[in-house]
């Protein structure tokens, strides 16, 4: 196995171009498990930990640019105010050791339907930055996930950053696991209110072949809020609204039975999380807390 250690972005992109089958590795919390259990044996590993800009985050035209190599620990410590949903999701990832090593970029690279950051990225309307020697493109998260453990990045591209506009409203993330920490999600849900554009966004995890939004639920809820003048009044949600929203969220999922949980429980738990988390974001919004 060849182990490439580029020290600059340009070197890394050239390496990926020269070795399209190279497996990028950052924290190794996913790739090393795959290697150790012989689930994948790439001819080339492309170590991205020596590229300084991947491990940075900053402001970029009003949005946050989160380098693909920023650890979950840093997201929690440094970005909880600006990316609350993603920070909440990061807090549920693995153990402290895993959070020290693991990265949002790695989560995107693995593109597992159970990846913890995906629902929060979807709800926040994140854009994924993909780069190659030929240039840079930004893909909405909704277009990024293409199948079980597959994404829209091309063989010559690296996932280099995530761009997220700081929220204009509150966000929440919840995840079901059968123990109280360090657990792969049975189902997950994220919600973000975007009052600046009178929109709602959601993200569903572990309940479909890919992370996905509950688009009908979002549209329905935004319309209901609009119709009742609630974006302006910030008044109490009408009776039954959260429940109807929850039903639409569950309807957007297409889960399976597996060793971690049944499809029926996944649907049920999604609807409970949707109902509760809508209550939480609305309470925050109603009480004037932006997030």
């Amino acid at each position, binding site marked *: 196995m060849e182990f490439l250690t580029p020290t600059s972005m340009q070197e890394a992109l050239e390496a990926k171009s020269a070795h399209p089958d190279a497996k990028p590795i950052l924290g190794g919390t996913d790739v090393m498990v795959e290697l*150790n*259990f*012989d689930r994948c044996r790439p001819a080339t590993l492309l170590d991205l930990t020596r590229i300084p800009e991947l491990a940075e985050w900053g402001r970029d035209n009003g949005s946050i640019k989160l380098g693909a190599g920023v650890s979950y620990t840093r997201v929690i410590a440094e970005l909880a105010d600006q990316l609350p949903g993603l920070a*909440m999701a990061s*807090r*549920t990832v693995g*153990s402290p050791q895993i959070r020290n090593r693991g990265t949002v970029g790695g989560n995107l690279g693995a593109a597992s339907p159970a990846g913890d950051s995906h629902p929060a990225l979807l709800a926040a309307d994140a854009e994924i930055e993909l780069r190659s020697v030929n240039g840079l493109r930004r893909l909405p998260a909704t277009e990024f996930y293409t199948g079980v453990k597959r994404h829209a990045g091309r063989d010559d591209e690296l996932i280099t950053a995530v761009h997220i506009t700081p929220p204009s409203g509150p966000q*929440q*993330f*919840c*995840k*079901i*696991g*059968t*123990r*109280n*920490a*360090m*657990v*792969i*999600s*049975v189902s997950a849900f994220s919600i973000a209110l975007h009052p600046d554009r009178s929109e709602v966004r959601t993200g569903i995890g572990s309940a479909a072949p890919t992370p996905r939004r509950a688009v009908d639920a979002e549209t329905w809820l935004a319309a209901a809020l609009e119709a009742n003048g609630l974006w302006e009044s910030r008044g109490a949600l009408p009776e039954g609204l959260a429940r109807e929203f929850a039903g639409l969220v569950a309807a957007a999922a297409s889960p399976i039975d597996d*060793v*971690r*949980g*049944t499809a*029926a*429980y996944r*649907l*049920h*738990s999604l609807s*409970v*999380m949707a109902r*509760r988390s809508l*209550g*939480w974001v609305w309470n925050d919004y109603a009480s004037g807390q932006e997030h």
Partner: protein
Amino acid sequence: MTTTPQTRPDKAAVKGADRTDVTPGGVGDSPSRPDGILKVTGEFSYSSDMWLDDMLWGYTLRSPHPFALIKSIDISEALATAGVFAVLTSEDVPGENFYGLEHADQPVLAKDIVRYQGEPIALVAADHPEIARRAAEKITVEFVVLAPVVDAEVAIGHKPWNPPAESVDAGVDGQVPHLHPNGNLVRHLKLRRGEQDATADVVITGEYEVGMQDQAFLGPESGLAVPDEEGGVDLYVATQWLHVDQRQVCAALGLPPEQVRLTLAGVGGAFGGREDLSMHVHGCMLALRTGKPIKMVYNRLESFFGHVHRHPAKLYYEYGAERSGKLVYARVRMYLDGGAYASSTPAVVGNAGTMGLGPYVIPHVTVDAYGTYSNNPPCGAMRGFGSVQTAFAYEAQMDKLAAELGLDPVAIRQMNALEEGAQVPTGQVIDSAAPVVELLERLKAMPLPSTESDQLDLRRMPGGVSNTTHGEGVKRGVGYAVAYKNVAFSEGFDDYSTARVRLEVSGGDPIVTVHTAAAEVGQGLVTIEQQICRTELGVDSVVVHPKDTSVGSGGSTSASRQTYMTGGAVRHVCGKVRDRVLVLAEASLGRTVSDLRLENGSVVSRSEGVLASIEQVLGDEVVEETDEWRHRPTHGLDPETGQGFAHVQFAFAAHRAVVDVDVELGLVKVVELACAQDVGKAMNPQAVVGQIQGGSAQGMGLALMEEIVIRDGKILNPSFTDYLIPTILDTPPMPIEVLEYADPNAPYGLRGVGEAPTISSGPAIMSAIRAATGLDLTRAPVRPEHITRT
């Protein structure tokens, strides 16, 4: 985690030792472990850390099928791989190709047939572990896959039972293949006491199920086999009983014990999972074939296939009671799925059958306990050994009875509790403390944790930081359960331990060397051995000799028995050493002194004070004694009635669990897990509390999350990603009260500690969840969908 270890000398220690008279570092003190600093700093050498420069790596090819015929095995391509030194199959087993703890029914390497997924078929030795693994992939095995037998009741031709019928005992249904020559029944224990047709005012029935738990020890199976120049081998291995391993390895290798020497390597946890052989014979075969040291280390995936698990159980219970709550009769049928090979299934059935009604007086008893073969993974020993499974059933029955009669669950347990002098269902009279009533009383008296919380702290919520509730749907429940466990080996087993103790002067100071073969698996026996030597010989400096087979058997590190048994042996042999030292002392004094003892490094007379230092008395003399020590004999059970003096000692513990359940999502947060346990004598109070905490957590794991999920004989979750064990965030504060009612038959009055807390913690949690949800919840572990019913 806040823990409140408490001893109650005011009441409980009346029969115990005088605490003011504790030798520093001796019995009753809590000295540091000799391996403690090494372990917490990561310097301790575990069995997987061993290394020799010229060693090879062994690898095991395992069956992908739970049940299949082997038509052919072609090793030629594997053997031709560069770096490969040997490829072995069943044809290369030098001695008997069968081993086993109670029945030698398990092949060293499968021949003609495989009976479980993961059964070893061939071995490879290579100069790199990856080469060995890849070479094993090149072995071609031609299988004829068969439909596996995956249900214990079906395996022995039984239909789910209700009501009991003797006739179903007849034998195996012709439809089900016999997995072994004598059929699929490993043991049927019958317990018959009192009237078999008793009736009662109130009848409570229940069907309960317990999933397959894994020991989940952190140090995977591993060892190093080093060939000598004379056809023998030295095996360094993590195990629980060196001598029973030695016996089986010798049989498989066709070598006498002198040529198969075992030394205990650093053990990273055991919990019963190391009672059976793993890499032992395999490593030795490869070492003898190649003439080179062989290292074998299972990874976590392989480990799930490399050791036995806790028997899953199906339990049918019917209790009759008076309207007062007094139990009248019990009719019970239990099925323990032993999987492909017997391992310790007969003894597990013995425990489940004789202990399976819990610490309660029931005059009329009918119990049928069955252990079966199937094509599921082999099951054998795990902490609590048959008692864990049945406790889920008998405590659920007690709760159900209390609910039916509108009685308090604690009161109904106390009303029926065993006490000293009572007869257990095997007819044995309990002849030392059985403080079931008091254990429950003490738990009930402990303050309940607050339900108030000023600020939302997700870590205190069901679901934790996964942020699924801010209080919505959360209901609190409280539940109680009592553990009842036999200590040491039962049913007439010749259970003994051997100790060698040497006292000599080295560098001007007396030093004791204690040598036993009793395995230290993390529980702290090495500390206990030192403590006993300090107390008995008055010498501070005690060296624990490496554990090996150059001294006699220490028996198994299991059944809560080592402090009792090897502790008893060390004390016994210390007495012999002390007697010889005192003879020497009297010789050097030139007179007889009636009240001599060893204390603080000196020979002391109660009347005359210090007479001489031990080094003065000993000079160059080395005093060494070796002897075996036995607990009082037990007897087998009557095969028709199950009556007999089968058990040495009974241990009792009780738990009170307080849980918060998110009833909408089915998620559980254990708020507090309080325990009261009678330990007879707290030999090392800190270690006792550690055992109670660890056992409580392990029992909690079985109630809430730990299960090897099997479908069609195959394990679906052989990893710590999906086999979940409790984390620190799942583990609640554990207020602990330790009682010390001395057992007059046991050394220092002690009672085995390790297993009892594992038995009652899970059922107490299940009881608390039932209280919170109002649901029956008859299956452990309880899954969220059992609570949400989705």
